[in-house]
Every structure is written in structure tokens, then in C-alpha cells.
């Protein structure tokens, strides 16, 4: 089946080689809070509302945000959100925090459009709004901290895959659900990039596995059984699917025969990377992502991060580039291997 990315945006595959063309960010297209009080230097009460609470991924972004808050000293952050990745409940949470009168809202959107009206209401109430991990419509927030551009993620994944399974290998994808915007976007970009730069890679199919460990394991297992020797690689699109796929490969004694490439937290992948069953795992530092978001929130409130900037100075991360009119780019996704994976703890 062809992938459309869940939205109407066209894919924009990067160049096949490592050339990175620096693109000027363009005119700021984010929103502005209405009649925001002067918060420069004043204590900030901020709420962080991720897609859902109780998953490792957002636990580590939350810890990054706390790190920033601690470093700044003038900002208190509470993380709260729905227990299911549900557009409706997330909206209710934001709504309640607008009423309770916070100074800033950090969010990772379950749906960019659905969340927009309530975020706009937050801006109208004079609240500073900054997104991370999953964006909303630009005018519904001020800035978005982009962990990696979708085409960048796609390039890392496909390049890594091709290097492991060869240019003519066959692969399948395990994702959460088809409707999750980030994953859908990445898969679209991967398809486009693979066609452009690795045209002989053979895409077999994509299976859904929710954010469910055992289901991911079962689905990977089924793919292995179905394709037998034909299957050379599995792409895990979520931090749940990748370790589960690795486990399936390991339990089937296919280490070295079936490659697993995917997004995952280093901690979850250490067992497989350390025993050489899996070569790498790709991810940005989720802690840094939260840290940058926290820093950006303070800077927006202080007025030091403003439209027209081309870089943003994010504490220990140094200068981050501003791209796509109103996004702060964390950097390229990182490929963790046996060499360095044990240096990270998240």
C-alpha cells in the first residue's frame, strides 16, 4: 500500500550523500500570545502535556524538562496528561490548565490540527506555548522544538538499513498505528527517500502493533515466519516496536541474518546491541529534546527568543539552528552503536 503520511504534505527526500544544504528559516509563522504579561525574569509556572503519560519516551523528555527547570531555577514544571494517546483527552487536559492559569504550556501533540483550537485559546489567554516531539499547526503555538526533520529521520533509517542488508534486501515495517502522525510522516519520507537513493531495496509490508510490547513481538514474529529467508530487515518505527522486533529476531536465532533498524531508547536496546544481535539504534536524545523545550519556554517568556532569530542558544546544547520558519532543530538523529550506547542512560 502506498503511504501518504496521514496528511496531504508531499515528501521531501534529502540528498543521497551527506550534503546538508543549510536553508534559511524563512519568515516566522508561529503564533503570539495576546496581552501576555511581562514575564521577563519572573518565576514561571509551566505545565508539560505529552501525548500520554506512563511511557518511557515521555518520561525521559520530562526528565530533560526538569533538568532545564532546575538549571534555570526560576521555572516550575508539572508533567500531566492522558493515560492513552487520545486526541480528545489531551485537549481536555490543556483546557483545564488554561483555566488554572499557568504561564506556559509545553506539549507534544497527538494530532496537529485537533489540538490547534485549544492551543490558540491558550495563546489568547496570554500563555506561552511551545511544542516538542510532535507539532501542532504553526500558528497555534510559538515555537516547536524539532527533534529531527522527518526527512532526516528517513535518511538515517534507510541509509542504516541499506548498509546492513545490502542494496537489494527486503524489509518490513512495524509501526504503532497508521494514524499516528509522526510515524506516518516518517514512513512516507522513508518511501520517498528509498526510491530516490536506494531504489532496489524491496519493501514488503507494514504491520500495526499499537504501542504494545507483546503485540509488536508477535507481529515481528509473524513477519519472520511469513517471509522466511526473504526477510532481511525489520524497521521499528516506535521505541516499543524496535526492541520487541529485536527480541523476536533473537528468540528465532536470526541474529546477523535479519537486521533490526529503528527508533528506540538506548536502554531498551542495550541487551541486543551488546550481544551483537542488533547493530544500532537510531534516536535523538529524548532528554536533550525535553531540555531544549524547557530552555525555549524560558527564552520565549523572557522575550530573548523572538521572531527573526536564526539560532537559539539552548544552555548546555549550545546554539541550535532555527528551521522551517518557527522550529528549533535539535540536530540530526543519532545512531547509537555498541561503541557508545553504554554511555547513555535513558
Amino acid at each position, binding site marked *: *500500500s502506498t503511504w*501518504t503520511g*496521514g*496528511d496531504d504534505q508531499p515528501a521531501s527526500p534529502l540528498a543521497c550523500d551527506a550534503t546538508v544544504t543549510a536553508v534559511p528559516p524563512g519568515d516566522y509563522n508561529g503564533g503570539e500570545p495576546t496581552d501576555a504579561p511581562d514575564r521577563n525574569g519572573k518565576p514561571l509556572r509551566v505545565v508539560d502535556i505529552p501525548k500520554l*503519560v*506512563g511511557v518511557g519516551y515521555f518520561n525521559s523528555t520530562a526528565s530533560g524538562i526538569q533538568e532545564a527547570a532546575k538549571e534555570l531555577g526560576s521555572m516550575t514544571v*508539572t508533567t*500531566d*496528561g*492522558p*493515560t*492513552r494517546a*487520545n*486526541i*480528545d*483527552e489531551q*485537549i*481536555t*487536559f490543556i*483546557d*483545564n*490548565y488554561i*483555566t*488554572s*492559569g499557568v504561564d506556559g504550556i509545553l506539549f507534544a501533540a497527538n*494530532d496537529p*490540527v*485537533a*489540538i*490547534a*483550537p485549544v492551543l490558540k485559546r491558550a495563546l489568547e489567554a496570554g500563555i506561552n506555548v511551545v511544542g516538542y516531539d510532535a507539532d501542532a499547526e504553526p500558528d497555534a503555538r510559538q515555537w516547536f522544538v524539532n527533534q529531527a526533520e522527518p526527512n532526516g529521520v528517513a535518511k538515517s533509517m534507510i541509509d542504516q538499513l541499506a548498509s546492513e542488508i545490502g542494496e537489494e534486501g527486503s524489509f518490513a515495517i512495524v509501526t504503532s*498505528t*497508521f*494514524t499516528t*502522525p509522526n510515524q*506516518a510522516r516518517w514512513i512516507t519520507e522513508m518511501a520517498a527517500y528509498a526510491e530516490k537513493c536506494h531504489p532496489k531495496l524491496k519493501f514488503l509490508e507494514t504491520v500495526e502493533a499499537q504501542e504494545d510490547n507483546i503485540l509488536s513481538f508477535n507481529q515481528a514474529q509473524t513477519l519472520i515466519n511469513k517471509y522466511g529467508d526473504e526477510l532481511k530487515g525489520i524497521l521499528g518505527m516506535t521505541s516499543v516496536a524496535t526492541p520487541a522486533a529485536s527480541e523476536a529476531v533473537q528468540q528465532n536465532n536470526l541474529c546477523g541474518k535479519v537486521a533490526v533498524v529503528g527508533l528506540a531508547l538506548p536502554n531498551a536496546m542495550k541487551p541486543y546491541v551488546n550481544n551483537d544481535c542488533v547493530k544500532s539504534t537510531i534516536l535523538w536524545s529524548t532528554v536533550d529534546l525535553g531540555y531544549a523545550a524547557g530552555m525555549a519556554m524560558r527564552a520565549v517568556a523572557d522575550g530573548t527568543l523572538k521572531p527573526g532569530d536564526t539560532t537559539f542558544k539552548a544552555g548546555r546544547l549550545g546554539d541550535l539552528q532555527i528551521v522551517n520558519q518557527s522550529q528549533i532543530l535539535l540536530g540530526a538523529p543519532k545512531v547509537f552503536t555498541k561503541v557508545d550506547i553504554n554511555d547513555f542512560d535513558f
Partner: protein
Amino acid sequence: MTLRSLLRHEAILALILALALAVLAIDNERFFTAANLLNQGRLMTEVGLIAVAMTFVIVTGGIDLSVGSILGLCAILIGVFWKTLGLPLPAAIGLSMAVGTLAGFVNGLIITRFRVPPLIATLATLALYRGLAEGISQAQSIRGYPKWFFVLGQGDFLGIPTQLWLLAAVAFAGFFVLRYTAFGRATYAIGNNEQGAAFSGIDVARTKLWIYSASGFVSSLAAVVFVSRVSTTRSDMGSGIELDVITAVVLGGTSIFGGRGLVVGTLLGLCLVQVLKNGLALSGVRGDGTIVIIGAVLIAAVLISNFLGRYSGD
């Protein structure tokens, strides 16, 4: 006597609600404001709409687990009819609501014609309708609706969120039909003794078909409100809403075994859950703590009314 024992649970619930309102208002001055309460009304409309019909369903001794999936399917269809097929938006909405009603009607058919217990029938259509939504949408969201459409989900009318008027109208209709009409009587009779009702000349199958169709209809109505509120359509919309709906209905005193229940109770149950969610959040309780408390309140409400029911003499 029945009326009295019915009202008893509702009265207790109203008392708990009043108490919750008072405590939360004292605790946080931002809680008891017209703006906040009206906004909460906006947020609970979809659950409320479906809960009104679910009250009927549960009074007949049935259950409808597929409402969330019908909501998702209708949401998707609004987008597909409008964008993909190019119909005018009102026509797309009308058509999608027709499909939603039909989905409910199919539930009713499976239940009445083939005598499949409602729980099983709607467990199956829960998967089926959600699957249709996913298959039809191919995971595509559809957005970019015209401005006027958002009046329903995001606008106000006479200073009150538009969808609250709709909820009020549906709730009143539900209240009136269940309380005062022959149809309402038939609903209770079926819930208490289906065969007895049939021997009295009540057309059991037809009554149930109407009720399940109505359940589909309000689910599609909720879909329209939902799409208008969040400006987009996704195939996973409304998943899990059935549990919220059932919570409101049973908290409202409708007996899960059928034969007993009032729309007023359902509305009280609905408000209590929403007020708790909102008030606790404003008081700094996190979301996971809130659902623990709602679970405890659900049990407490039943225990209190069991206790009073037992000792108030029957």
C-alpha cells in the same frame, strides 16, 4: 414506590454533585466560574449525547459497545464524503449521519433477528465499524473545513457553547420520551420482562431497533460535534468513549440489568464525572490520580445507594 426508590439514587447523586461543586469551588476560585463550567459543558457534550441514548439501551437490559466506533466511522465519512467525493458539507454530514443510524440499526438487527446478546453483537461491531473507519480512511486525516462548520463545536450561541444547546435538546427529548410516552413505557417493560412485554402486544423487536438506531444516530451526531470541535477527522476518534458513556449511565443509577433508570440520573452522572475531572485538575491532582478517584466515586455511589436502599424500608 418505584418512583421514590428510583429518585433516591438520583437524589443522592445530586447531593454528591452539590458537595463536589462546593468543595471544589472553595478549593479553587477559578473553578466555579461561568466560563469554566460552560467550557466543561463543551467538553462533555459528545459523551453526554451518546449517554442519553445509552440510557435507553441499558434500560432495555442491553448494551452498546460500538458507539465509539460508530463515532469514528461517521467522523471519517464526513471527511470522505466532503473532500474525496466532493459533496457539499451539509450533504456530507447528513449522509454520514444516515450511515451512523444505519450502523445502529444493523446492531439492532443482529440483536433482534439473530438473537445475539447485545454485549457480543456490539463487541463484534465495535471491531467491524472501527475497521471500516480505518479501511476507508487509509489512515488519512481530513482537515480544512469551512469556518461556518466550526460554529457548532467551537462557537457560542447566546453566550453558551453551541453544542450544549444540542445536548440540551437531545437530553430533553430523551427525558421526555422515556418518562412520558408509550415508547418509554415499552422500554422499561422490555427491560423488566421481555416476554411479558411481548405478550402485552408491545413490539419488542421494533422498540429495540428504534433504540439501537437512535444510539447510532446520536453517535453520529457526536461525531459531527467532535469533528467541528477539533477541526479534523481521524479514524481513531472516539475509541474508548463507550466506557466513559457507560460510566456516566450506571453512575446515574441506571440498572445494568435493565428496567430501571432515568435520563436525569445519566446527566447527573455525566456532570459529576466532568466536574471531578476538571475540579481535581484545577486543584493540582494529576490525571492518573483523577481516574483513581473517579473509580472510587463510582463504587462509593453504588455503595451509598445500596446502603440507603436497604435501610429505608422495603
